[in-house]
């Protein structure tokens, strides 16, 4: 039997109610005309409900002629469903909107992954990336070259930076350079040279000759413990004046007093904000690159204090931020800060300076603060003297007089 291409009941089917006598005759006629029928439910002698394919509906009507009253109860299948869905304007608008949202959310960075860092912490790199404009929720159109350049400038000892987007994920790969000097092989002669400038305080030479006694001011590269040890021959029959040299692998520790001079600034006057009692409330909304702050539009105060309560802050799927803002009008008056306050702040700045500029485990020998008041600011000169271990090994290349000469000059 040749199969007709009718599709299937899943494609498009019609459930109808047939009213009339001799239902069995109509069903038999449908069988003869090869009309598949489904779910035949006999309600009474004159009523039945059945389902047939939409393809056969016209043939069914011709078969039934005017002997039966036929009512369509429902249509099923993916074709009428699609027709129904796409027939509505609201569905089309919704779909377009969905597609736009999908596209819009793909233009933002939702996550940043940092790989390859060793000496830096992830938060340091993230902070630097944020300063450069790459943060979670930022647009993907950020200039990556500028971001890399910022990172090269901001973070020391970066050999290579790679930034690539994987969907909404920004993958930042960092390769750090190696600046740690390799220690000289024990079998090779070497000097101990200064790696910082300062006044030599104490030298413990286990091997080699002390080249910089206590109190000597040394600069980076100056020899502290020399690996060239003069040897005077005392053997019988050898002229006593003849001296020769022995090359050794210098070992020892050199401590030096390192001076630091750091400049900080403080405000001379302190602002006192007195509320006038006038205030306004608004909202701030950020959707991707769109930013709106109603308080900023309505704010007409000369001086004001801005407060915000963040209610929504999401990055995925679209960066959305919403908050209630309050702006209070204030009158700003200036009051000169007391000496005690200035000194307290100076000491805090000194502690900050020590933490930021001095290596760990150093002994602070002296600390002094000098305040120079200006018109609006006060300059704070912080003088620090720290006892630090200086000195690094430098190989002596035999026969290379130029190298030796250079070191001497230093």
């Amino acid at each position, binding site marked *: *039997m040749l199969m007709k291409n009718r599709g299937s009941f899943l494609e498009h089917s019609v459930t109808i109610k047939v009213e009339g006598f001799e*239902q*069995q005759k109509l*069903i*038999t006629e*449908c*069988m003869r005309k*090869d009309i*598949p*029928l*489904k*779910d*035949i*439910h*006999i309600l009474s002698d004159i009523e039945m409900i059945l389902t047939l394919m939409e393809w056969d509906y016209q043939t069914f009507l011709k078969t039934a002629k005017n002997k039966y009253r036929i009512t369509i109860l429902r249509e099923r299948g993916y074709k009428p469903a699609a027709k129904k869905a796409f027939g509505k304007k609201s569905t089309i608008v919704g779909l377009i909107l969905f597609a736009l949202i999908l596209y819009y959310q793909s233009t933002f960075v939702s996550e940043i992954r940092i790989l390859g860092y060793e000496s830096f912490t992830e938060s340091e790199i993230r902070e630097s990336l944020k300063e450069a404009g790459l943060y979670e929720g930022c647009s993907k159109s950020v200039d990556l070259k500028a971001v890399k350049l910022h990172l090269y400038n901001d973070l020391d000892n970066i050999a290579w930076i790679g930034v690539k987007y994987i969907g909404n994920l920004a993958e930042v790969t960092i390769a750090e350079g190696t600046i740690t000097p390799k220690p000289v092989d024990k079998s090779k002669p070497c000097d101990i040279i200064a790696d910082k400038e300062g006044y030599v305080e104490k030298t413990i030479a286990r091997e080699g000759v002390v080249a910089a006694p206590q109190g000597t001011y040394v600069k980076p590269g100056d020899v502290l413990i020399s690996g060239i040890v003069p040897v005077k021959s005392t053997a019988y029959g050898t002229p006593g004046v003849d001296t020769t040299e022995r090359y050794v692998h210098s070992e020892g520790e050199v401590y030096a007093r390192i001076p630091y001079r750091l400049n900080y600034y403080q405000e001379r006057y302190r602002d006192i904000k007195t509320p006038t009692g006038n205030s306004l409330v608004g909202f701030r909304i950020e959707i991707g690159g769109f930013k709106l702050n109603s308080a900023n539009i309505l704010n007409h105060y000369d001086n004001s204090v801005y407060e915000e309560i963040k209610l929504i802050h999401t990055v995925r799927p679209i960066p959305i931020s919403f908050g209630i803002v309050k702006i209070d009008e204030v009158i700003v008056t200036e009051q000169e800060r007391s000496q005690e306050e200035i000194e307290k702040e100076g000491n805090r700045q000194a502690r900050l300076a020590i933490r930021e500029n001095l290596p760990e485990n150093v002994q602070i020998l002296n600390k002094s603060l000098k305040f120079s008041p200006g018109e609006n600011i006060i300059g704070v000169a912080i003088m620090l003297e720290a006892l630090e271990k200086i000195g690094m090994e430098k190989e002596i290349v035999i026969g290379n007089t130029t190298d030796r000469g250079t070191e001497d000059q230093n």
Partner: protein
Amino acid sequence: MNVKDELLYDFSIKMPRLLVSGNTGILDNVKKIVYITDSSIVVDHGSRFSAVSGDDLRIKLIEEERVLVTGNIRSVEFYSGKKGDADEK
């Protein structure tokens, strides 16, 4: 069943062929629906009739001389052929 019997069975297109299992019955070689209610379905196979009786009977599908019946099937009966037919009983 030998080959001859199998061939005869396959080509008996006017004879009733029923398969009943649980609440489902399959009636093959159906030429005509004679009587249909929710308690009884009688069909003509060409040379014989068969009837399925029970409760809540429904025709699930009619397609290519096959009728799929669902419901509580209680009994199946076969009736003799039409007047003048060789197998009239």
